[in-house]
């Protein structure tokens, strides 16, 4: 499948399909159900400096063609992650991207520093945009200035691995945020995180989620995500990783044509554990049919002037 081989910020990928953070656990939960080595990379559940317990239940609710979640970034913390989770990923032939977040700039910097010197971690993905915890990121994506501060602070301590910054769609205009990332040294951006939404239980006359609001994902957000990927692609020169409602090769192809150098698949993993593998296969057939030697040739084809 040479048509799918790529290099993102100096890291070789066998294909541009990545399992999105928060939907693939620490990488091994799906081992029984799919061939993980057929996936280009895995972005593991967002890691913080300290173990985090997340939000009260209910944390999930299905909406029309979408999933609202308010997990609250539950994770084992960076130390336990490296000691207990990462070793099991070592023999796997796939790229490991570690998503991370902090409550303060110092926490972001501390986690980034640790991960930067951790073997087997191929790339870092900074989450400045989780909508579900009060301090967790949302304030950092409230203004391009705040993004600049946290990204440049982390860049100072990262010297070994490329840094991806995951953008929030919950802003009036995503372009200045993407620009701020590029200007502060981000090696790539991924877009988009979930859109803030809510659902109400009419019998109980209360919000369904204990957290009241949650992040919307799934096919419902795909058109919005695609538009934002296009906007980001037209704004920055660094690679854009497209995320948002991808569930098959056609969706992935749309994101590539809108400017994505790679894509992440999230919610669809819950529906079909083989979706990443099948998307890569479908994309390969599409490129073959179109007689395109490598998908890189068509990145942004539908939008670039």
């Amino acid at each position, binding site marked *: 499948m040479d048509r799918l081989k790529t290099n993102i910020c100096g890291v070789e990928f066998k294909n541009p399909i990545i399992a999105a953070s928060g*939907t*693939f656990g620490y990488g091994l939960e799906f081992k029984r159900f799919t061939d993980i080595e057929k996936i280009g990379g895995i972005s593991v559940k967002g890691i913080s400096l300290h173990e985090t317990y997340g939000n009260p239940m209910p944390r999930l609710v299905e909406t*029309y063609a979408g*999933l609202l979640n308010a997990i609250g970034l539950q994770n084992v913390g960076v130390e336990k992650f490296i000691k207990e989770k990462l070793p099991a990923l070592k023999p796997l032939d796939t790229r490991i991207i570690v998503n991370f977040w902090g409550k303060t700039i110092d926490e972001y910097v501390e986690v980034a520093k640790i991960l930067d010197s951790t073997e087997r971690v191929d790339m870092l993905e900074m989450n400045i945009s989780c909508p579900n915890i009060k301090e967790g990121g949302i304030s950092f994506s409230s203004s391009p200035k705040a993004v600049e501060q946290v990204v440049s602070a982390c860049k100072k301590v990262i010297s070994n691995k490329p840094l991806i910054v995951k953008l929030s769609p919950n802003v009036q205009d995503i372009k200045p945020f993407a620009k701020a990332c590029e200007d502060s040294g981000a090696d790539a951006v991924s877009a988009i995180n979930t859109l803030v939404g809510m659902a109400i239980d009419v019998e109980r006359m209360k919000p369904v989620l204990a957290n009241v609001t949650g992040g919307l994902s799934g096919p419902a957000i795909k058109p919005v995500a695609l538009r934002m990927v296009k906007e980001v692609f037209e704004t920055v020169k660094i690679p854009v990783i497209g995320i948002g409602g991808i569930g098959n090769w056609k969706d992935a192809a749309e994101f590539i044509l809108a400017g994505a150098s790679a894509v992440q698949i999230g919610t669809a993993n*819950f529906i*079909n554990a083989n979706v990443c593998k099948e998307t890569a296969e479908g994309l390969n057939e599409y490129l073959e049919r179109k007689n395109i030697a490598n998908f890189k040739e068509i990145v942004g084809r539908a939008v670039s002037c």
Partner: protein
Amino acid sequence: MKATVVKNTMLSDKFGYLELKCPEIAKEKNAGRFFMISPHSDNVYLTDTLLKRPFAICDITSSDTFTCLYMITGRGTKVLSEALPGNNFLVTGPVGNFFRFEKGADTALIAGGIGLAPMINAAKKLKEMGNKVTLYYGGRSKTDILMYDFLQTICDELIITTDDGTLGIKGNVTVPLTDKIKEYKKIYACGPNRMLQAVNTLCSENNVPIDVSLDEQMGCGVGACLGCMITVIENGEKVMKRCCVEGPIFDGTKIDWDSLIR
């Protein structure tokens, strides 16, 4: 992984019984485990219902077929109720932990409403081990008591309760259980959380161990999404467990019931 519909029978206006062909799930030897099923057939992904739904493995009917019991409560179960023989569904499983029965111990199975689902397989397993099978089964009304004749064939003792007294003993399952609880070495229960809490209280008062099988909404069913957390109390501390992996069966005495009743 696919499962093909063999038979789909409506048992009442809201309960249905689905027989599926899927050897990987039908080969399961333990009772109490579950599987996830996509609420749309033939792998059509583009639909408004997205997530797979968890259902108990109800009965193993042959080396490659098994059944599940469902209650129509929303869009997903409505789709299941319309499934036709030959339709294919995406499934994941078997997943979750299972009932650990002890040979020869006096036990009782307690089911409330749709909580009957894992108890059919459980009753058969107990029988296979040579144990006496006692099933307490409660519902709101006579029409909610499913498969009555079939249950009699797999249980040595079947005690029915209905809230309105239209079949069996009037009241909930704790009414007949209160007098008999001391006779049992262990209780296994599945049903609405409030019923499970009441049975758990009765067990605690009489020092009878209890395992409960919980029904929680799930995202992935394989331990990745952290959307089905159950709060249990271990060594005086509240700890969160994934219902899909560490459950669905938990020691009832360790559950933080207040967090489940909402």
